[in-house]
């Protein structure tokens, strides 16, 4: 990927409405051509950040640079951005063609240039047959395609997506997700994408910024965030089914171990974070798919006997609930595996794939 220089740079950005602080001295650099996803629960400030980048909200402090130019005080149209909204926000009284050309007509673009750009956008998004229709006569997926086209015709440097797929049904969402990824590969534009859907974030992003309470918790490649979350919030937010969390105590020394009830998990293979604690009350986290069953469990550095409590078949695989050290614990097995309730089983995992979080701060240990 051609990544030369910074496309969008946010420096010490703060935003507060009266006494409520939505964003707090936030810094973020987005590289040219990068696909970055802002991920977080509702109310975390991700959409607010996107509106600040678009120029639809005035910032309280800090500055925003797009393509090296300070655009903090610029109007949205002068920032070189295109935006796609969750509710499509198509102009209901205009045909698709007029919707696409509105921004260009406002800017006074020559007619033949407008026609050329619309033809190109319509071809890329395959909406040529829809050009003369009104938005009300389109399906949800078609509307969102037109909305993307509206950003496309303006030939912008940066695309901003504000939960564009959240109004679509699951099947369409998966289809358009792939299309957006293809579009990014074809255009090589910088894209900033806001979502609360961790699957969208994992599949689309070059880098994910996980946000909570107006602060970026972790900014990294999807795999890193998934495998080495910096704190308990990030660990719990990504992954479905969610990571198992077991409360207990970490002990250091020659035989470093995590203890909960009468279970002791050796931590010799766990890579402690250099900056974090290494002992004291903590939470042990392991993802359901990193747990092995039966013969495979015995080959793991840690294995224990347990009993099946509940089985949740999900089609492609099955989630099994049991107890570990008296606390709820789930793991994944292939769908072919048939387990009965109460059946004794042996489970095991490699603590190297686990995550340990300080009970107090929630930070990675």
């Amino acid at each position: 990927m051609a990544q030369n220089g910074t496309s969008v740079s946010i420096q010490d950005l703060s935003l507060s409405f009266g006494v409520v602080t939505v964003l707090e001295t936030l810094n973020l650099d987005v590289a040219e051509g990068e696909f970055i996803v802002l991920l977080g629960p509702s109310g975390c400030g991700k959409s607010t950040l996107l509106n600040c980048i678009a120029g639809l909200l005035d910032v309280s402090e800090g500055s925003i640079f797009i393509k090296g130019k300070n655009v903090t005080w610029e109007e949205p149209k002068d920032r070189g951005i295109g935006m796609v909204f969750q509710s499509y926000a198509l102009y209901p009284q205009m045909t698709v063609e007029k919707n696409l050309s509105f921004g260009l007509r406002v800017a006074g673009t020559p007619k033949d240039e407008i026609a050329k750009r619309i033809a190109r956008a319509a071809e890329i998004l395959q909406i040529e047959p829809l050009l003369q229709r009104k938005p009300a006569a389109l399906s949800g997926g078609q509307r969102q395609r037109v909305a993307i086209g509206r950003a496309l015709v303006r030939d912008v440097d940066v695309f901003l997506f504000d939960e564009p797929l959240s109004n679509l049904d699951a099947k369409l969402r998966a289809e358009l997700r792939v299309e957006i990824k293809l579009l990014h590969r074809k255009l090589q534009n910088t894209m900033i994408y806001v979502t609360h859907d961790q699957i969208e974030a994992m599949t689309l992003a070059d880098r994910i910024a996980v946000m909570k309470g107006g602060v970026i918790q972790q900014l990294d490649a999807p795999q890193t965030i998934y495998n080495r979350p910096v704190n308990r919030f990030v660990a719990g937010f990504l992954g479905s089914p969610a990571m198992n969390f077991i409360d207990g105590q970490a002990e250091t020394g020659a035989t470093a171990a995590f203890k909960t009830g009468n279970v002791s998990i050796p931590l010799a293979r766990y890579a402690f974070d250099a900056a974090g604690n290494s002992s004291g009350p903590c939470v042990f986290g392991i993802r359901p798919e990193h747990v092995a069953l039966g013969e495979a469990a015995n080959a793991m550095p840690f294995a224990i006997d347990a009993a099946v409590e509940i089985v949740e078949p999900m089609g492609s695989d099955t989630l099994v609930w049991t107890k570990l050290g008296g606390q709820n614990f789930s793991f994944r097995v292939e769908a072919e595996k048939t387990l009965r309730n109460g059946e004794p089983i042996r489970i095991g995992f490699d603590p190297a794939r686990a995550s340990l979080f300080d009970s107090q701060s929630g930070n990675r240990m």
Partner: protein
Amino acid sequence: MTVGPITAIQPPREAPDQAGVAPFGPKPRRISAGRIGIYAFLVVAALFFLIPVYIMIVTSLKGMPEIRLGHLFNPPGEPTFQPWADAWLHACTGRDCNGLSPGFYNSVKITLPSVIISIICASINGYALTFWPYKGANLLFGLLVFGAFVPYQVVIYPLIIGLSSVGLFASLPGIIIVHTIFGMPILTLLFRNFYAAIPVELFKAARVDGAGFWRIFFYIMLPMSVPITVVAVILQVTGIWNDFLFGIVFAGRSNWPMTVQLNNIVNTTTGVREYNVNMAATILTAAVPLLIYFISGRWFVRGIAAGAVKG
């Protein structure tokens, strides 16, 4: 009513007379006592309002000798449109005997500009208050809505002083200004609430597309405002047409609207009281709002019911 757990799952009481028929398809509808009661009430209510209308119409088509017989409900024996023509052209208001027609034209001259100006101002107000909030916008809106509850009588005297100091008292522009001002609270409220239901993302998208205050208003908001504009037109036309108080105070004798003229015709005390002419004149005056309701009633309901606009 207590229904045991077993009777609860039994079919409804109508079922036995279709013994052996398993429930299938739409449930058969029965006329219940409640339904009959509702219809009876509606018929009575309709008659209550229609009987006076009927009497007005038949009386206006009778000659004076027939009216003197006193058969109020009888249809006209020899129908005549003379009272209508008299009401329009010759009925006397005080000393002038030109009928209602000058009042009609005055009312048109007052209503048309007042409706147009007040709706233009109110739609811009509502749009600005919704999408371009500025410091004190909410306070202004609060004051405006409060204005809807100020009794007219309280402000008449200050308004007379104010208008006469700028030389607009008892003139056509004066009455138009008064109607525009008094339409502002309710119309602004109407438009603001309509625009507040429009997704704000639509406005943001237009901003990103580079449109400014007026372009967003004219190209995007106005085309969507047809239903609410129809509501506003109906409210204003009927309100201003039916107005009596402002007309008699602010319009001046030469611009008196139809309602004032009607009052003068009906209350003229010289000579015989021409009931048929009075009835015809009243129907003529009420015809405009009536017509507006008949033509646009469907739109009225649609506009009031128009909530969120799906884009």
